[in-house]
């Protein structure tokens, strides 16, 4: 596993948007770069990146209502399915392709990751860590599908169809030959450095081929 990296925390984006993964992504993305956000939701992150880092921002969002709201914010978003639209982009069209809290929802996560690294020079992947101790204990003691606080869905209506842990992601990155440039682990609003596979609720990876 790549060493967790401590960065100077710029609280603005995270606090503004109320999401720690956004704060990290806001730090990672270089000014004036080209960014594609897969599953951009209502475009909050892209709008922030456009206004504060001068990025050329594009977003894809499967929900029509969210895509509309993103456009209403001035973000160049369109309604589309990540599993289908990535193939439309040319090689290395973006500096960063962001996939935040969505990898576990895609039908074919590996294909999505490979496509992200074809379309972008770097991929930023943020995902919930299903290896977190609370998830483990929940399964052990209740005998029921865990409902981590970040994704409080019943098993039958959860959008999450591929459960992964920090160690799973590291293993896949090694197998695929992805270089992990940086990784960050979060529990609530705290950064985790020790035992991320047990203590982190979320992970954010910056990877390249």
């Amino acid at each position: 596993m790549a060493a967790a990296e401590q960065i100077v925390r710029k609280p603005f984006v995270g606090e503004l948007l109320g999401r720690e993964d956004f704060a990290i992504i806001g730090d990672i993305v270089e000014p004036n770069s080209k960014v594609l956000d897969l599953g951009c939701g209502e475009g909050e992150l892209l709008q922030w990146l456009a206004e504060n880092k001068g990025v050329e921002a594009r977003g894809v969002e499967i929900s029509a209502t969210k895509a509309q709201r993103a456009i209403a914010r001035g973000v160049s978003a369109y309604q589309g399915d990540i599993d289908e639209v990535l193939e439309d982009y040319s090689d290395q069209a973006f500096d960063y392709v962001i996939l935040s809290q969505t990898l576990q929802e895609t039908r074919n996560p590996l294909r999505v990751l490979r496509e992200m690294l074809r379309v972008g020079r770097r991929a930023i992947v943020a995902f919930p860590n299903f290896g977190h101790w609370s998830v483990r204990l929940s399964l052990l003691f209740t005998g029921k599908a865990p409902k981590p606080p970040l994704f409080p869905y019943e098993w039958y209506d959860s959008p999450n169809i591929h459960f992964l842990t920090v160690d799973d992601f590291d293993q896949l990155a090694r197998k695929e030959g992805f270089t992990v440039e940086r990784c960050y682990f979060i529990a609530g609003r705290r950064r985790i450095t020790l035992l991320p596979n047990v203590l982190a609720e979320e992970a954010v990876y910056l990877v390249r081929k």
Partner: protein
Amino acid sequence: MTVETHTAQFESISLENGTSLSSVLVAYQTYGELNAAKSNAILILHAFSGDAHAAGISHETGKPGWWDNMIGPGKAFDTEKYFMICSNVLGGCQGTTGPSSINSETGCPYAMSFPVITMGDMVRVQTKLIDFLGIERLLAVAGGSMGGMQALEWAVTYPDRVAAAVPIATTARHTPQQIAFNEVGRQAIMADPDWNDGNYYSSRPPNRGLAIARMVGHITYMSDESMREKFGRRLREKEKFGFDFSVDFEVESYLRYRGSQFVSRFDANSYLYITKAEDYFDLTNGTGSLASAFSKAKARFLVISFSSDWLYPSYQSQEIVRVLRRSNHDVAYCELPSNYGHDAFLVDVAEQSEVVRGFLASTYKERA
């Protein structure tokens, strides 16, 4: 906001069919103020039967413009921020030169001696108007249906003159189904004996044919659902069937009313010429390659389609979006939910307003 129609005149317009037209008049309206940098001008492009009166209350007729719900102070096209322009298309009959205009060489209406024009010709005339108004580069071009075709034509043919394009409920090339409906309309007009090979300006115009053409058009602008909601199987002013061929159903009454209204404001020959221009419209110029068509475009795009529009279905907008995306153009797209069919861009404007407003604001910030 009371508005007036102005007229500009151009000596000669060259046409795609190789000929040219002289003394071309263009009817237009403007709303809002052009800023000092001339960077806030937006050209609105009307649909098939529209005109230059897009917004405000007409000084001449007292009626609101056809997109008054979208254009005005505080509206999506905010006239406190932007300078809005709308002109009647070439070939039209609402003040811009068309087949019903007098040919200065003969002193008679052009009728069928009017040249067959294209979407490109209509847009070329619009560029003359923009020149005339002293505007180098438009902040945006926007329109639905045929107006959307012109927005695409602008972005592709005059890439340096438009910062953003908003094609709504439209297509990059007319499809067989769209051509087919237009052909039914044309045949209805030409089958009316009063059409008289287009020479009816000093006699009775082909009102029956034109009304039938409009009735067909109206069916294509609605949706199955909107017709069921609006009319159901309700009878018109009767309790039971008449067992004759007078009006039984509400929907019949509505279509007849629309048809009869239309003939009082529209010229049958304009119907022929404008629908022909739509049918000839193919952004790829027959090459089939939308990618090469868009290769020169520099504008950012907002493409909008409507879920129940079966005349210009969403897949046609998505095809445009897909090509733009592949070539790394700046494009936003959404399909808006609506039951109103193709008419949605004119009547169901709450969500459309929000996306247009946001898109224009960021365009103005980034590119004005």
